């Protein structure tokens, strides 16, 4: 039972992070390897707003969310729009470079010691019993709920709203989209903003649960196999991929060897790439267009 709870929480973490990879890839055809850093930036954002708005935790959380959204849009307009039309490699490398830059700047601005934004907010992380002998931390529960909400909203957004449909259209055929009057830069910036927002949300929640330090980047990196296993252009795929990877990781760590934690996602990714490179729900043509 405890294992199932652990899987659910980890799957929620991965899913919340990997939907950022999917959003950016789907709209702009770029794989952002700076996602882990952006996620961490979101968490530091919460830490900063928490001390700024001390006594108003809700305001702090809201401000941190807005901040993350703005950072994503800023990243697009400051850097990524210059990479449109460049090769896949150049764009991916630009995100890697951005990641390094952010990592350096965050260490400069916030130092390297572990931070606890939850304590800054004045909230505690209670342990909640699930069933007879399983426990989940309060933040863990919030994580699962937040992930469910984010996915529900994203599905609705992409399926039913005009901007969502336009985002899908732009990702599929940017030339035609531009011709149909869709401003691509706006769409791309929105995708970056949303991805950074969801990533930042994940970062804030993880930091609230486990503290905020530089190893968080590794979690971001481990989530991207989840996106790929599911299919880089499919949100449902990211969800399923996250569950598969989280389950495999938790079970392997529990039954075989704790050292495997960092490598299991990549083993699964490799197996998937060999058997079915486009992932569970990804479209097959994706392979040829990159």
């Amino acid at each position, binding site marked *: 039972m405890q294992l199932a709870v652990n899987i659910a929480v980890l799957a929620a973490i991965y899913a919340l992070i990997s939907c950022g990879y999917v959003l950016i890839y789907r709209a702009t055809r770029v794989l952002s390897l700076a996602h882990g850093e952006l996620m961490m930036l979101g968490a530091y954002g919460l830490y900063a707003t928490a001390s700024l708005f001390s006594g108003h935790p809700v305001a702090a959380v809201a401000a941190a969310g807005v901040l993350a959204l703005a950072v994503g849009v800023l990243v697009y307009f400051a850097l990524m729009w210059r990479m449109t039309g460049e090769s896949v490699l150049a764009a991916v490398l*630009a995100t890697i470079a951005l990641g390094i830059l952010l*990592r350096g700047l965050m260490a400069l601005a916030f130092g390297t010691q572990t931070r606890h934004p939850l304590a800054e907010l004045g909230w505690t992380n209670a342990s909640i019993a699930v069933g007879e002998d399983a426990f989940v931390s309060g933040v863990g529960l919030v994580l699962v709920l937040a992930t469910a909400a984010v996915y529900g909203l994203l599905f609705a957004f992409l399926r039913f709203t005009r901007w969502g449909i336009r985002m899908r259209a732009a990702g599929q055929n940017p030339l035609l989209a531009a011709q149909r009057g869709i401003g691509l830069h706006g769409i791309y910036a929105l995708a970056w903003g949303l991805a950074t927002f969801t990533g930042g949300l994940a970062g804030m929640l993880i930091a609230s649960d486990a503290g905020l330090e530089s190893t968080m980047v590794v979690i971001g990196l481990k989530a991207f196999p989840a996106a790929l296993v599911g299919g880089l252009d499919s949100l449902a795929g990211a969800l399923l991929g996250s569950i598969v990877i989280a389950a495999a990781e938790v079970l392997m760590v529990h039954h075989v060897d704790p050292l495997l934690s960092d490598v299991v996602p990549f083993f699964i990714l490799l197996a998937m790439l060999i058997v079915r490179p486009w992932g569970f729900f990804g479209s097959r043509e994706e392979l040829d267009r990159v």
Partner: protein
Amino acid sequence: MTVPRASGYFRTRYAEDFALLDTRTRKAWAALFAAALLVYPFLAGPLALDLANQVLLGAVGAVALMLLTGYAGQISLGHAGLLAAGAFTTGILFKEFGAPFWVTLPASALVGAALGLIFGLPSLRLRGLYLAVSTLALHFIVIHLGAEYETKRGFSTGILVDPPSIGGWQLYDARAWYFVLLAAAAATVLFSLNLLRSKTGRAWRAIHGREAVAGALGISVHRAKLSAFVVSSMLTAVAGCLFAYFRGFVSVEAFSLFLTIQYVAMVIIGGMGSILGAVLGTVFVILFPYFIEWLMEAAGLAEELAAVVFAVNYSAFGLVMILFLVFEPQGLVGVWRRIQAWFLMWPFKQKPLAGTK
């Protein structure tokens, strides 16, 4: 292969198209450069010598990556994994069997070649982004195996490797290392240049351009891809072996993803599709942190920032990489060619046509 000079020099035989050094002036410059490299260790101080050694060692790996990415167009993010494979092969053979370097070096090369085959297999089905991702996955797996070995055998801090020895003589002195590494780097560069003007090299460039067309021209795309991965990985693993001896120490911490990024940066900053670029990029990336340190000292901030040197380095490095990607995608070689063109055309202004290289 090379850019013709501006003066009235014309090639009259096909063989001249393939010559590495065509004119007398170029030969003279090459000889002068070689001589300078040979006397360098006798003039340089200890720090300059150490830097030169690092550059030479890095150049082997950078040239190997350039062959794969810059010429054959296969994106790899597993370079640190391959270096680690070479270094760990050396370390393990040394620790377990006390193997001398003339066993570990070929063994590393062999392991590298085998891994290259494994790294290359996904490339038969995957392209671009997906290939990069699969090599990244392989990186983590290789590193995991290394870490596993370290913990299981109780070398959790790393494996100590004695310097290589021939008879009673040990390779320890920095100056001696300089010549060994110079020989290795020169051999790598010459080997690569030679390979590139052969059928294999042409096949690589063809698949870089467009796989389907290359296939239609009778090039075996699979073979070209795999050979690119095997050759590149072999060279990289050899660099890893040298790395193990040079540092005298092997540990997974040294082969983080950041190392891969550094190598990729060497290729990017140097300029894609140029061996000269790989070497220039190596010089740039290796010297960069020292330059930053010097800059901090010059600004009088050295003490204040002492605790966060790595953070400053990271930021500056990321920034430089972004600047190159955005403003000089052809890298240092692009700058170099523009300077050359400027001098050739002087006093006339030359404006290169867009779309030509």
